[in-house]
C-alpha cells in the first residue's frame, strides 16, 4: 500500500511510525501520560482489526465482538486470582477459550444474516456478560484487580517493564495486520469476500462457504481474545464492562469511522476515535456535543470513513 504513497498510505506509515516512536517521543515532550494512552489505543486497534476481518471482508457484522476482549481478559484475571501468573498458562488459555467460544458462537450465528446476525451475536455476548456479572467470586460487576502482569519467566521479556509492555502490544498489532493482509490476499480471503456479496453463487460453484466463514469467525475471535489478554495486562484490571454491548458498539464505530474493508482503516479509526475523545474531554465535559455531529459528518461526507476520505478505495462494494 505504501509503495505508491497515496494519502492513505502516507497516513498508514505516519500512524505506525508515531506508534513506534511514542515511548521515546512522549517523555521527550514531557508528556509520559501519552504512552499509556497509545498503548490503550493500539489494543483497541487490534480488536477493531479483528472485527474488520469478518465485518469488512466477510459481511458479518458482529455486535458482540467485545466478548472476546472479556474472555481474553478474564483468562488473565481469574488465573491471576488463583495465583497462576505464568504467561505460558494464561496465554494458551486466553487463546484456546476465545477459539472455543468463537467456534460455538459461529456455528449458531452463521445460520443467520443481516440484522438477524447482528442481534444473535449481541444475544450470545450478553449471555457471557451476565455470566461474568454474576461471578461473585471474581468481583461481579466490580471486576478483578490484577496484581501481577503475565509472567513469561524470563527477565529479558518482562511485561512489568512499561516499555516492554508497549512494544509487545505494538508487535501484536503488526502481527495481526500481517495475518489479516495474508488472509485477505489469499484464496481464502477471496472466498470470504465473494460469499459476503453473493453467498448462493459461491456455494453454487461448489465452495462450502460456511466452513470458510466459520474459520474467519474463529480467527477474528482469537485475535480479539489476544487484545483482551493485552488489555488485562495493561490496565491490571478486568470487569464485565469490557464485554458490555457498548464496547462491541464502539468497536463497530471505530471500524466504520476508519473505513471498513480496508486493511488499515480500523487502526486509523481507533486512533481518531480515542484521541478525539481524549482531547475533547479535557477541553470540556460537554464534548459529546461536538463529537456526535462529527460522527454524523464523517458518514455524510467521508464515504468509506477516514480512509475513504483519503482516497483508499474499499476493495469491494
Amino acid at each position, binding site marked *: 500500500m505504501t509503495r505508491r504513497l497515496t494519502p492513505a498510505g502516507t497516513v498508514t506509515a505516519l500512524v505506525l511510525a508515531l506508534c513506534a516512536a511514542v515511548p521515546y517521543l512522549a517523555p521527550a515532550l514531557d508528556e509520559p501520560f501519552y504512552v499509556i494512552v497509545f498503548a490503550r489505543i493500539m489494543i483497541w486497534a487490534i480488536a477493531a482489526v479483528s472485527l474488520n476481518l469478518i465485518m469488512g471482508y466477510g459481511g458479518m457484522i458482529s455486535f458482540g465482538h467485545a466478548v472476546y476482549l472479556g474472555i481474553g481478559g478474564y483468562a488473565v484475571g481469574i488465573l491471576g486470582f488463583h495465583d497462576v501468573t505464568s504467561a505460558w498458562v494464561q496465554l494458551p488459555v486466553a487463546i484456546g477459550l476465545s477459539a472455543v467460544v468463537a467456534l460455538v458462537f459461529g456455528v449458531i450465528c452463521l445460520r443467520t444474516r443481516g440484522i438477524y446476525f447482528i442481534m444473535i451475536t449481541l444475544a450470545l455476548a450478553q449471555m457471557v456478560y451476565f455470566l461474568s456479572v454474576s461471578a461473585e467470586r471474581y468481583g461481579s460487576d466490580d471486576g478483578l484487580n490484577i496484581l501481577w502482569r503475565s509472567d513469561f519467566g524470563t527477565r529479558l521479556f518482562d511485561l512489568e517493564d512499561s516499555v516492554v509492555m508497549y512494544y509487545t502490544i505494538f508487535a501484536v498489532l503488526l502481527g495481526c495486520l500481517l495475518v489479516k493482509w495474508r488472509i485477505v490476499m489469499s484464496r481464502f480471503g477471496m472466498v470470504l469476500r465473494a460469499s459476503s456479496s453473493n453467498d448462493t453463487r459461491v456455494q453454487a460453484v461448489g465452495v462450502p462457504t460456511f466452513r470458510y466463514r466459520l474459520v474467519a469467525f474463529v480467527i477474528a475471535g482469537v485475535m480479539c481474545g489476544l487484545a483482551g489478554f493485552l488489555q488485562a495486562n495493561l490496565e491490571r484490571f478486568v470487569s464485565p464492562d469490557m464485554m458490555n454491548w457498548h464496547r462491541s458498539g464502539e468497536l463497530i464505530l471505530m471500524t466504520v469511522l476508519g473505513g471498513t474493508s480496508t486493511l488499515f482503516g480500523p487502526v486509523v479509526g481507533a486512533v*481518531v476515535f480515542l484521541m478525539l475523545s481524549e*482531547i475533547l474531554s479535557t477541553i470540556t465535559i460537554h464534548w459529546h456535543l461536538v463529537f456526535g455531529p462529527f460522527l454524523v459528518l464523517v458518514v455524510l461526507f467521508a464515504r468509506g470513513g477516514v480512509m475513504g476520505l483519503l482516497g483508499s478505495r474499499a476493495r469491494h462494494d
Partner: protein
Amino acid sequence: MCKRILGAVAIVACTSTPASADIKIGFVTTLTTPAAVIGRDMRDAVELALEHIDHRMGQETVEVIYGDDEFNAQKGKQATERLVLRDNVDLVTGYIWSNVLLASAPVVLNADKFLISANAGPSPMAGRRCHQNFFNISWQNDQTPMALGELLNQEEIQTLYVVAPNYVAGQNMVAGVERSFTGEVVGKDMTVWPSQRDWSAELSKIKAAGPEAVFMFYPGPAGPAFVKQYQQAGLIESVPLFSVYTFDSISLPLFQAAGIESVLGSKMTQFWAPDMDNEQNRKFVAAFRDKYGRYPSFYAAQSYDSIFFIKSAVEAVNGNIQDLDGMRAALRKAEFPSVRGTFRMGTNHFPIQNFYERRVVQDTEGNWTTSVGPVVLEDHQDPYAGECAMEG
C-alpha cells in the same frame, strides 16, 4: 489527520503545563451521566472549602483539578491516570463509587501518592488491601447499615425484606444490615445496577412476603424513583421503609416537588446531618446554603472535610509535601475541624466515629431536610479493621 492529531496533542500539552499553584489536588468524581448530581454537590463543596481557606494551606497556594469517572470503573481509572501521570497532582481525593475506587487505587498508590476517599469505603480497602497511603474520610460501607440494623432492633422489627443494587456497595450495605439485625430476613433482591429503574416485580414480591419493614439502598437519583414506586404500590403506609443514603438534600427537593408527604418522618442512620451542632458544621451549612441555595448533602460534607483534612497534614509538614512520613503521621491524627465533630482514625485509616439516627423533617422555612437524633452506634469501628496488616 496525523498532523492534526499531533497539533492537538501539542495544544493539550500546553494547556496542561504546570499551573501556578504550589499544591495540586486531583479530585475524581462523576461529572457526566445522571449521577453527576452527586458530583456537582461534591465539587460545589470543594470550591466552597477552597474559598474558606483562601486557596491556601499554610504558606502554599492550592489548586484542585477535577477528573470525571463517567460513572464507570474503567473510565474512572483513566481519569485517575490523567491526574497522576499527566497533571502530576500531589495527592488524589474524591471517589463516589466503590468499584471506581478499587480500580483506581493502584494507580495512585503505585505512584507513591496519598489517596483519600471522600465517599467510597469498600471492604477490601479497609481490610486486606489497606495501604499506608490510603485514607478514608467518610465511613466504611458496612458501618451505616450496621447502625441501621441496630436501629431496626431498637424498633423491635422481626421480619425484614432487603432490596439493593447488585454492585460492591450494595452488597456491603446488605451485609452490614444482616450483620447487626437480629430478626429474620424474609426476602432479598439484588437488582441490576445501574440500568434497572422499574421495580414492579420486586415490589410485588415484597407485598406477597408481607415483612414488617423493608430495607433499601439506592444512591443518587434511583432512590427517589424507588420510593415513588413504593408509594404507588400502596406499600408506604403499611410497611415502613428504612434506608441508608437515600434521603438527603439531593433527593428531598425532588420528593417535595412531587409532593410525596409520606417520606416525612422516615428514619435512617448516618454519621452526619446538616443540623449537627458544632462550629465548623454551622459555618459550612450556612455558607453552602447561602452560595448554592440548597442544603448540602453528606457527599458535600465529606468533600468539604477532605480539603480541611489535607490542609491539616500540609500544615503539619510546613508545606513540605514530599515528607510522606510526616504527612502520614498528621493524617493519622486527623486533627482538623470536621463537620461531624471530633473523631479518630482507626489503624486501617478509616474513621472511628458515632452513627446517629436521622429523620426527614420540614425546616422552619418549609424545606424538607434531615435532622440528627440520638446516637445509635458510639465510637464505631468497621468490622474489617482486624484484617488490615498495616502496622499501627
